[in-house]
């Protein structure tokens, strides 16, 4: 996965103002586009921004919405935590054991690029309908990027760090805790960021295909009942949460990168 790298550009005050202006212009353009699509189709596909926000405000007051949101959140958090922990450990192991890493990496990279949706029926057959299938599907999406990012970080580590750990006779656990994890932190945060969005995607797809609860289900049922404001509102909520979480993790990642640089 290619990532954008941000060089630390000098922030002249004038440039910052221009940027802020551009960001406002961009937001307005997007809202205008949204409005245009909404009114062009007379709201049969997408409800316009203002109407969606009003509906969303009403939706946030219903217990039904929070019930679905809680189901998604529970499945997602489980999937994300499992992906992050297992991916971190696997990545560290494959990073240190070079040969194991060389054996595993193409398999993982291959798994990353296949359409995993096609495997969802198998997950359903194995885990049954319900929470555990969604979680498993989320982990299938989130585990690999976390592993690959951690693996890459450990592999590119200056060898002197590991030699120091050996000189100090640190146990494997302590080497991980005191040397590997701190040294790889910026990449680990990047892996977490990717793992976050992909396990969310996995859980949502799971809910959209066959589930009776969750935001993915709510979205599809909004479609099926021809309740356009509902489906638009659900999409809006998911997009906002995803962008907020990503921005936060980008910031954290950049702070770690600056500190270790």
């Amino acid at each position, binding site marked *: *996965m*290619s*990532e*954008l790298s*941000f060089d630390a550009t000098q922030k002249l005050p004038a440039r910052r103002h*221009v*940027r802020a202006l*551009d*960001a406002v212009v*961009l937001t307005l353009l997007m809202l205008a586009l949204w409005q245009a*699509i909404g009114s062009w189709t007379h709201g*049969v*596909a*997408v409800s316009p921004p203002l109407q969606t926000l009003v509906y969303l405000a009403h939706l946030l007051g219903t217990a039904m919405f929070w019930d679905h949101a809680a189901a998604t959140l529970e499945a997602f958090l489980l999937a994300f935590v499992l992906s992050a922990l297992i991916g971190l450990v696997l990545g560290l192991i494959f990073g240190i054991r070079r*040969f194991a890493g*060389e*054996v595993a990496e*193409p*398999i993982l*990279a*291959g798994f990353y*690029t*296949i*359409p*995993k*949706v*096609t*495997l*969802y*029926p*198998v997950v*359903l*057959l*194995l885990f049954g309908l319900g929470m555990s299938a969604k979680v498993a599907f989320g982990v299938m999406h989130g585990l690999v990027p976390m592993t690959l990012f951690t693996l890459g970080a450990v592999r590119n580590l200056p060898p002197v760090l590991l030699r120091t750990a050996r000189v100090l006779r640190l146990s494997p656990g302590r080497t991980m805790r005191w040397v590997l994890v701190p040294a790889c932190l910026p990449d680990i945060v990047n892996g977490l*960021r*990717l793992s976050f*969005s992909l396990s*969310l*995607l996995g859980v*949502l*797809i799971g809910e*959209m*295909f066959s589930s009776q609860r969750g935001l*993915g289900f709510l*979205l*599809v049922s*909004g*479609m099926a009942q021809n309740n356009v404001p509902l*489906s*638009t509102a*659900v*999409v809006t909520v*998911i*997009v906002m949460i*995803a*962008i907020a*979480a*990503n*921005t936060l993790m*980008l910031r954290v990642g950049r702070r770690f990168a600056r500190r270790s640089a």
Partner: protein
Amino acid sequence: MTRRHAALIVRTAILASLIALLEIGCRFGVIDTLTVLAPSDMVASMVDQIRSGELDASIATTFSTILIAFVLAILLGTAIGPLIHRFARLRDVADPLLASYYSVPTFIFYPLLVALLGLGKAPLVVLGILSAAPAVVISTLAGLDGVAPVLMKLARVHRLTPARTFMWIVLPAALPHLFTGFKLALSYALIGVIAGEFILSGTGLGYAISFAYQSFDNRAMYGVMLFVLLVAVIANGILYVWEGRLARRRSRG
């Protein structure tokens, strides 16, 4: 070189033994064949369905959709990338957008696209473009950023016209990044289109899998699934090997 070969051998051995284990498990009743089919049955089912021609229509629909989405994503991405690269102000706006683009599960727009464009090829193509084009933009930008300033100076010294500078300096220098972008675009378009067909559609391989699942036809389901996965793995594998060759040829200079 030998190390790489050794890794390849071990990898093949691991995968082969996993498949063998699954086969044995299914044959001896350790694994419930109502849940998972034996690999040999999956292959047999796949071959049957391809031979009988019942998959022909689905194959044609799915791959033409993927191809259209892939080509359009590349055209769009390689057009937008240089534009953003050229104007710093546009860049300032686009960078944060691109950085958080893939955090949004684009797939959730699919139901809206279906409502907007009707059930058919159009929403799938748009979904494919939405998932693939930004990757092309990102890697085009990376490629253009990666052109060493000294190369541009060289072009100026030789008084190359902009067109020649592009053909002889920029394009060769940016090619590895572009290639990575195309590779990602293919797998994202593939994932997007098949996922769309799977969740909500009336045709295509993704639909064939979900239809077989819904009608409890596990044999057909595993057959189509194996076919889709094989095609994806082979397509991505070819690009992966090709990319590796490009990179090694470059590093040799």
